[in-house]
């Protein structure tokens, strides 16, 4: 009985991954049509991007500050505090920027997208659209997916900038590191392709994954209050797992 239950659970998991894959193909197919609804796409970029700015900027600032503080302490043991700017920037560009931004966006915008689409399903709004001969995949799903792909790398850049600003604040303004050393070492070590662009590619992929999961969970949410609640939770759980797993895989391939 127990083994049967586990097997069912496993099969259902695999089946829903497959379903999500098919949904991804359907959303990609609806993308060209969704360009006719470009206003909706812009609105979604604004919603996912601009509305997440406050949380992303605040978190970026604090992550940069705590990073500088911890690293200053560690580096001072080896007498290498001159490398503080470099290490802060590299950690942010390569790892923390894309990953933390993706986790924040999954919590801030992903849940909102899931709940919104789930409620649209529950109140027949999606059916009403398809009855008005408007494809909900092109009008609802695709613009939100696109918005995630566009907004995520931009948000990651803002996060990185705020993080470096925070690092500078702690390292130079507070702990008295030389300003020239901080910037000089950073700019001479950080590479555009290997560090900055690789991080950006990551966040584009994370943007796609997070918004795909959010849209899929909303689209397939059971039309009950309980169903929407579960789907919203699942968005955060699945997004977090997939972001960190993809991060490892992508890092392994990129370096």
């Amino acid at each position: 009985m127990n083994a049967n239950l586990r097997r069912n659970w496993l099969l259902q998991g695999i089946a829903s991954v497959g379903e999500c894959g098919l949904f991804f193909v359907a959303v990609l197919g609806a993308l060209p049509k969704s360009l006719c609804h470009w206003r909706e796409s812009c609105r979604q970029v604004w919603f996912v991007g601009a509305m997440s700015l406050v949380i992303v900027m605040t978190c970026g600032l604090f992550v940069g500050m705590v990073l500088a503080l911890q690293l200053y302490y560690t580096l001072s043991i080896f007498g290498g505090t001159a490398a503080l700017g470099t290490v802060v920037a590299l950690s942010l560009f390569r790892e923390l920027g894309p990953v933390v931004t993706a986790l924040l966006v999954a919590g801030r915008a992903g849940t909102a997208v899931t709940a919104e689409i789930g409620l649209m399903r529950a109140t027949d709004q999606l059916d009403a659209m398809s009855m008005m001969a408007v494809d909900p995949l092109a009008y609802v799903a695709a613009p939100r997916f696109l918005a995630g792909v566009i907004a995520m790398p931009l948000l990651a850049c803002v996060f990185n900038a705020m993080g470096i600003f925070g690092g500078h604040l702690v390292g130079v303004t507070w702990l008295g590191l030389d300003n020239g050393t901080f910037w000089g070492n950073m700019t001479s070590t950080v590479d555009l392709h290997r560090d900055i662009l690789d991080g950006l590619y990551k966040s584009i992929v994370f943007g796609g994954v997070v918004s795909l999961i959010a849209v899929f969970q909303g689209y397939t949410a059971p039309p009950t209050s309980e169903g929407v609640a579960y789907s919203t939770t699942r968005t955060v759980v699945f997004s977090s797992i997939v972001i960190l797993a993809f991060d490892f895989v992508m890092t392994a391939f990129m370096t």
Partner: protein
Amino acid sequence: MNAADHVKTADALVQVRGLRTRIGAKMIFDGLDLEVPRGGITAIMGPSGTGKTTLLRHITGQLRPDAGSVVVDGEEVTKLSRRGLFDLRERIGYLFQNSALLTDFSVFENVAFPLRRHARLPEELLRNIVLTKLQAVGLRGAAQLMPSELSGGMARRVALARAIVFDPMLILYDEPFVGLDPIALNQVLRLIRTLNSTLGITSILVAHELAAIRQVADRVYLIANGKLVAQGAPDELAHQDSPWTRQFFGGEADGPVPFQYPAPDYATELGFAEGTR
């Protein structure tokens, strides 16, 4: 007239033949045949859970049946492509049970939504069309309100304005009277009648309210157990002597539709039957 011997009319707008649908383990339709002629208001009645809404979803192609054919305006819905379905749906208005207004948009934008998506109209003309439709349902003054600010009756009228914005040939009403106070109910009733006669559309109405249906419907189909069990003019049906119509129009608690949900023998389940002690 008997359910089995209805004749095929040449100008039927909707023809359903041998419809079979199973949802999960439940048989919804088991060889349903019916025809809706052009013009007039057809009411579809039946006990809850007999698949009246499912029938509407078959007519619009939102749901495909397991077997049988559904022909709307000469087109076989079950075989239409996605594109074909969307073309057909532009000619069909659908009023959802819970109105299904888009909550992000104002009343005006809700009614304008199909126009903006399908017709490139100058803003002035679009505004005039939308205001005409809103005037028809008596809500021109509410154009700038949001759906959350509307009462149930008003939301239904806005949804109706949206459903007729393309001047459809067919309107499907899914339980349009549910949850309305007597005033709102009469307003919706009057609208259904005037829209049908002034625009010359065909209306299919799924509802339970006998008094309302007697006022507005030209003919009634009674569906039960996945089949058509009676049809005719509302008054004719009310006096027809079949167990189905007697129970349904008389509102009897027990009859062909049993009061008890199917269950094992009562005495056995309580442990009083012989041999269980």
